[in-house]
C-alpha cells in the first residue's frame, strides 16, 4: 500500500485534473463572467453596444410589462408542467415498479428512450399531432365528435402538453429510483394487518417516494423554465417564454446587453430554485431517513 501511494504521488491530483480545470476556467467561467459584464452595458439602436456600468437593462426587464408577461407565462407553464408530470409520472413509476421482467425493462426503455431523441424531433411529432389539420383533429372530425378543429398549436395548452411529454421521463426516473429503496416487506405487513390497498399506498408508499417526487419536480421545473425548442416551435411568434425572448434579443433585435440581462436573471432564478430545494429537502428528510 505504501509503495502504491508513493507511486501515485508522482501524478498529483492537481496535475490530473488540470486539463479539465483549464478548459472550464477558459471556456465556462470566462464566458459566464463576460455575459454578466455585458448585462451592465447599454445598447443603442444606431451605435450598438455601449461600454459602461448601469442597471438600465435590469431596470427595463423589471419595469416593462412585456417582460412581466413573459416571466409570468414561463413560471405558469413551468408550474403546470411540473404538477402534471408529478401527477402522471408518479403512478406510472409505481406501476412500472410492480411489473416483472421482461415487461419492466421493455417499458422502461420505451419511457426513457425518448430522452435520447432530439427535442426537435419530439416537438415535431406534437406539431404533426395537434396542428389544425393534424392527426388528432382529423381523427376527431372524422369520428364526428367535433366540427371545428380544436386549436392547440400556438397555444399555451399545446406547449404544456408537449413539454410534459418531453420532461416526464425525468419524473418517472426519479420516482423509480426512490421506489428501488422501498422495502416490499413493509407494504406486505400493512396489507396483512388489514390495511386496504389504498391505505397502504397513502400511508406507506407515498411518504417514502416523496423525496423522489420532489427531486423529479425540481429537475422538471428547472428544465421547463429554460426550455427553448418546444415553446419556439409550438408557441409560434406570439407566445414568448424567457428563453425565446433572450434568443430574440440576441439574434433579431441584436440587443445583446438586454439579452444578457435576461439570461443572467434566468440563471439566478435557476440557482435559487435549486438551492432552496436542497435546503427544504435536507430539513424535511434529515431525520426521517437516517
Amino acid at each position, binding site marked *: 500500500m505504501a509503495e*502504491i501511494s508513493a507511486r501515485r504521488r508522482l501524478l*498529483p*491530483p*492537481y496535475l*490530473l*485534473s488540470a*486539463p*479539465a*480545470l483549464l*478548459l472550464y476556467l477558459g*471556456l*465556462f467561467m*470566462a*464566458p459566464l463572467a*463576460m*455575459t454578466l459584464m455585458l448585462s451592465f452595458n447599454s445598447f443603442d439602436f444606431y451605435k450598438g453596444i455601449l461600454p459602461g456600468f448601469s442597471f438600465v437593462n435590469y431596470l427595463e426587464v423589471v419595469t416593462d410589462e412585456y417582460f412581466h408577461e413573459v416571466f409570468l407565462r414561463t413560471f405558469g407553464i413551468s408550474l403546470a408542467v411540473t404538477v402534471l408530470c408529478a401527477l*402522471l409520472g408518479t403512478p*406510472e413509476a409505481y*406501476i*412500472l415498479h*410492480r411489473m416483472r421482467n421482461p415487461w419492466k425493462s421493455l417499458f422502461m*426503455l420505451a*419511457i*426513457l*428512450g425518448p*430522452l*435520447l431523441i*432530439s*427535442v*426537435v*424531433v419530439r*416537438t*415535431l*411529432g*406534437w*406539431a*404533426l*399531432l395537434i396542428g389544425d389539420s393534424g392527426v388528432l383533429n382529423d381523427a376527431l372530425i372524422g369520428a364526428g365528435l367535433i366540427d371545428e378543429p380544436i386549436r392547440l398549436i400556438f397555444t399555451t395548452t399545446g406547449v404544456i402538453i408537449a413539454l410534459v*411529454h418531453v420532461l416526464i421521463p*425525468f419524473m418517472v*426516473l*426519479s420516482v423509480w*429510483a426512490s421506489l428501488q429503496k422501498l422495502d416490499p416487506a413493509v407494504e406486505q405487513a400493512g*396489507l396483512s394487518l388489514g390495511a386496504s*390497498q389504498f391505505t397502504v399506498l397513502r400511508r406507506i408508499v407515498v411518504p417514502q417516494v416523496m423525496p423522489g417526487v420532489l427531486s423529479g419536480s425540481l429537475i422538471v421545473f*428547472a*428544465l421547463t*423554465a*429554460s426550455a427553448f*425548442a418546444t415553446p419556439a*416551435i409550438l408557441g409560434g411568434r406570439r407566445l414568448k417564454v*424567457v428563453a425565446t425572448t*433572450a*434568443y430574440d434579443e440576441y439574434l433579431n433585435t441584436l440587443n*445583446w446587453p438586454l439579452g*444578457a440581462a435576461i*439570461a*443572467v436573471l434566468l440563471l439566478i432564478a*435557476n*440557482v435559487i430554485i435549486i438551492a432552496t430545494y436542497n435546503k427544504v429537502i435536507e430539513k424535511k428528510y434529515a431525520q426521517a431517513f437516517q
Partner: protein
Amino acid sequence: MSKNGPIALAFHTVFIIFILAPLVIVCLVAFTSKGYLSLPTDGFSLRWFRAILDNPDFIDAFWLSIYLGLASATIALCLSVPASLAVARHRFPGREGLTAFFLSPLMVPHIVLGVSFLRFLTAVGWNGTFVGLVLCHTIIIMPYSLRLVLASVTGMDRSAEMAAVSLGASSWTTFRRITLPLILPGIAGGWVLAFITSFDELTMTIFVASPSTTTLPVRMFQHITETIDPLISSLSAVIIFITVIFMLLLDRLYGLDKILVGQGR
C-alpha cells in the same frame, strides 16, 4: 408483490401511447406518397427518404453534427478520465468543490451557455469556426461523461492494480493494462452518452452556429420554423432510427436507467 389492477394497466397503456404517439406519427408521415403532410393511407412510399439526398444542406449538416459529436465526445473523455482518477483516488484540499465544479454546467440553462459562448467566441474571434463549436460542446457534455467514468472508477476493485504494481509494473503500464480495461464500460458508456448529447444539442448551438457550421438540429429547427413538410418527417425518422441503435447499445453497455438517473441536475 401484488399485481397491477385493471385500472393501473389501463393508465399504463394510455401513458405508453402518450409517450410513443408523437414518435410513431413522425415515422408514419415519413412514408407518405403525397406531396403534403398526411398518413400513408395508400401504401408506403420512400420518396421523402430519397428527397433527403436531394438536399445537400441537410446532408452537410448531418456530417458536421457527426464530426462535432466525435470530436467533442473524444475530447471530453480524454479530460474526464484523468479528472475522475484525481477526484476518486486522492484526498486533497478542494476535492469536493472540484467535483461539484466539474458537474456544474448541468445547472446552467443551455440558453445562458449559448449567449455566453457567443459573447466569448466573438471576443476571441472564433465565432462560426468548427473549433469553437467543438470546445463549447465539450463543456456541455463533460458532466455526462465525467459522471459515468467517475462511477466506474469509484466502483472498481483495486486488488488487480496493487498486484501489478507489486510485480514491478510502472504507473503507466498499470494504467494501460489494468485500470483502463477495467473502467472501459464506463468510458464507452460515457462516450456514447456524450456523443448523443452533442448530436442532439440545439439551444446552445443555435447561438454559435454560422451558416458554414450549421449542425443538423439547428438546420432542422430553422426548417421547422419556416415550414413543416414530409421531408422533415423522413429526416426525423432517420434520426429516430439512429438514436434507437445507440440507445440499445447504451442499454447493453450500462443500463439506460443507471445512465440517466440524476440527469438534468
